[in-house]
């Protein structure tokens, strides 16, 4: 399945775009997604931390992702 990913802040700089897509086996989890992205964009691993949001909620590593989900990469936040 193809997962479209929204990128914000420094993640946008790392991906070179505000959306990227990755190809993952059906039934993949957030952890699989992160591993695949870190493989493709090694600079992700240099961040202080980052989270995956699925449908506007912070997602646990074990959460299964589907093609219908809205997926986003959330680098360390700094609002306020």
């Amino acid at each position, binding site marked *: 399945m193809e997962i479209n990913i929204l990128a*914000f*802040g*420094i993640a946008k*700089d790392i991906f070179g775009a505000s959306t990227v897509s990755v190809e993952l086996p059906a039934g993949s989890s957030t952890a699989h997604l992160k591993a695949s992205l870190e493989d493709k964009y090694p600079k992700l691993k240099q961040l202080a931390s980052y989270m995956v*949001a699925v449908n506007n909620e912070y997602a646990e590593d074990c959460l299964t992702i589907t093609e219908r989900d809205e997926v986003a990469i959330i680098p360390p*936040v*700094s*609002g*306020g």
Partner: protein
Amino acid sequence: MQTQIEIHTEPLNIQSCIDWVMSPDSGGIDVFIGTVRNATKGKRVLKLEFEAYKKMAINEINKISEQVFKQWPVQKVLVHHRTGTLHVGEIPVIIAVSAAHRDAAFEACRYIIDTLKQTVPIWKKEFFEDGEIWVAAHP
């Protein structure tokens, strides 16, 4: 128990924020106003840029507000956050809380800004004379 949350690129209006949280049964309002500082760790700041994952940010601020209403006897909670380019002295965030008694207003307002800075998907880029940096991105 009312909440008003806004995220947009227009300048924030302090007076209208305070007018909104006022109510005849409130005795005190605490307001936190963030302002863009001219320096970070001694380095001159030219401008800031704020970016938000708007839908999720509103979602997360809503969670903070719900937690506030559980934890403190407050009457109204307002959070306005600006995005886009801001210069020194401009206002990225206004938080206002009204309550019958001031303790609750102070504590809730403090909790909101502290938690917002930890959980709400909004990002700040600082522009210096010699470069730019996404705040908090790297260890």
